[in-house]
């Protein structure tokens, strides 16, 4: 299996999402609070996974601009949940980089005072292992 195909499969597995259920309504992009900060928009995540272009997702700004607020997950009428897809993509990137986790002591210096607290909370929840 090609790497990109494998990565796409892994995203589907981690997120538990079937991207083929998407009907391209755009409600995710309509709900997203950090839409303007993103280069790949939430509704596009799905087609990147379907087209197995995970590299572009991994390189995108969106990967780190998603707040994991889950507004798109909550409102998606098709149970596709783009927020979960991007979360899974992040997970893959982190796994591929190896266990280069931050130490708790290093965090305060790195945190931009403008970073939304929700992102921190979700990051801690996600990466506490």
């Amino acid at each position, binding site marked *: 299996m090609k790497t990109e195909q494998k990565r796409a499969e892994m995203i589907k597995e981690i997120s538990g999402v079937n991207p083929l259920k998407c009907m391209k309504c755009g409600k995710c*992009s309509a709900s997203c609070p950090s839409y303007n900060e993103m280069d790949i928009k939430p509704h596009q995540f799905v087609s990147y996974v379907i087209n197995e272009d995970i590299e572009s997702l991994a390189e995108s700004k969106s990967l780190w601009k998603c707040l994991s607020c889950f507004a798109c997950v909550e409102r998606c009428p098709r149970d596709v949940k783009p927020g979960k897809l991007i979360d899974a993509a992040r997970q893959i990137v982190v796994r591929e980089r190896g266990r280069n986790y931050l130490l708790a002591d290093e965090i305060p210096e790195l945190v931009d005072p403008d970073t939304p607290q929700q992102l921190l909370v979700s990051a801690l929840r996600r990466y506490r292992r």
Partner: protein
Amino acid sequence: MQRIGVFVCHCGTNIAATVDVKKVAEMALHEPGVVHAEDYAYMCSEAGQELIHKAIKEKHLTGLVVCSCSPRMHETTFRNAAEKAGLNPYMVEIANIREHCSWIHKDIEEATEKAVILMRAAIAKVNLDAPLKPGESHVTKRALVIGGGIAGIQTALDIAEAGYPVDIVEKTPSIGGRMSQLDKTFPTLDCSSCILTPKMGEVNAHPNINIYTYSEVESVSGFVGDFTVEIRRKARSVDMDKCTGCGVCQDKCPSKKTPSEFNRGLGTRSAIYTPFAQAVPNVPVIDRDACIKFKTGKCGICSKVCLAGAIDYDQTDEIVTEKYGAIVVATGFDMIKLDKYDEYAYSQSKDVITSLELERIMNAAGPTGGHLERLSDGKAPKEIVFIQCVGSRCADDRGKSYCSKVCCMYTAKHAMLIRDKYPDVNVTVFYIDVRTPGKNFDEFYRRAVEEYGVNYIKGQVGKVIPQPDGKLLVQGADLLDNKQILKEADMVVLAAAIEPNPDVRKIATMLTASIDTNNFLTEAHAKLRPVESPTAGIFLSGVCQGPKDIPETVSQAGAAAVKAIGLLAKDKLLTNPCTAQSDELLCNGCSQCANVCPYGAITYENKEVNDHGIREIRRLAVVNDALCQGCGACTVTCPSGAMDLQGFSNRQILAEVDAICR
């Protein structure tokens, strides 16, 4: 011993592509009783039936097994073919090797093996088949239509025109249904009431039609041709014979604060009311929950002002029992509740409304007198946003999985009418897809865009945020421009999904008509029998069967009427001969079978029997063939094994089990 012929159908490649039909036919010859086996491309065709005919004659066959599609499809075809060749039609069994085999398996070897087993089971069954003769039952030449909307009205008129009496049962005080609430209709922009009220008047005046408004079906028993229905006529508190419909009582009624159901709660009505001015019958109803007389005992103004003396506070519910040959369900639809879609602020702002509410606002007889205004402050809106697919096409449990079908068109209609009457109002429609399959439908939608300048944006709305200044901030996506849009609107209109009237489930249960998970009634065949329920004698009209617009509803209503007329025109119906029968020597008269019989088809008689030379009088179960529907409940209940079902006998089913497990 039977002489059985086995006929294996290729169904083109539908069966032959995955089942080795030659092998199946060859294997058949090894089965007991089989004297003839052949395969053919289309067994149901004229030529295929000719093969069957020839084989029956030449080989003196006594039983047939046809390995083909589902018996629900062509059992009748092959039974008729057998009958033409002089064989009893009930000596035919079908092995379903298409729906239950070739269409669901891919491996040829596996599918062939299964087809052979299914064939063996059918052969085992036909070996034990006995000739059966259907009985006859009479047809009550009267039809019942449940629901008095456009579907029910059209069906009733068509049946009545053919000369049969029809009763309409309508739950609300007037017939008219949803269509009476609409302002204009697409794609011609006729005024809805202008085309509906003449039909309502026609129904009211028709000598063959009897309307029970403010009534509900209480119970249904019987079967095709002979249904007995109890109808509850709720206490109207007004004598229908005396009332002249002058309307004075409604004007004088001091209790005027009840939200009007007809205006979707946007206006109020009095406690004694007719839902709308053109109501049929034009006789008011007292809403006892709102009436001061009923709540406190003091008032009685309506009674004092009524010159006809029609007010009757002591009226009670009345049960009418009537017999019908056919029943048409036309229970219609309602909008879904929007409490699960809080992101659109429907419950937070009065200016977020549903499309049906907009219909009432735009209607001259509506709460605003037909003037387009915000319900919060009465101001004229300058910016209106329409949101499509609210609750339609949902995969989660918040909405419905289906497309509601009518929303794209009525939204184009609303947008066009608003732009026409108020050219200074901007109209924006957020859509996922615009679906306009229908005559002149796409042209209609294109006119909204090209001639009326309605702004269509491909993308859904994520959130509607009410602002302190009363505006509504709409956050949506424009997928073609890849932009997120923030738009201030004065009014937001939600194209909420439609759902079958919630009462339909109760009615389906009474009629034993199948219903799907979305509460739409199931048709007997999705393509070939779209207006009939699988339950004989029950017909479907309008949205109760699936989402549809007015022209489609009217066509289906006519089709349902034709099917009902076809039934009523018959003097006798052939009954299903697969009925239960009791073995006199085994029956001990215990009454258990009669207790489980849903049709009251089993009675007891004292009969003389000859049991191995001993003559005695015994109490025995006797099945009335005309009443028995052949469910088989009694056969399993019978402790002595005396009851058996013809056509599905114990020995036959056991033989099938044996053949499958061999």
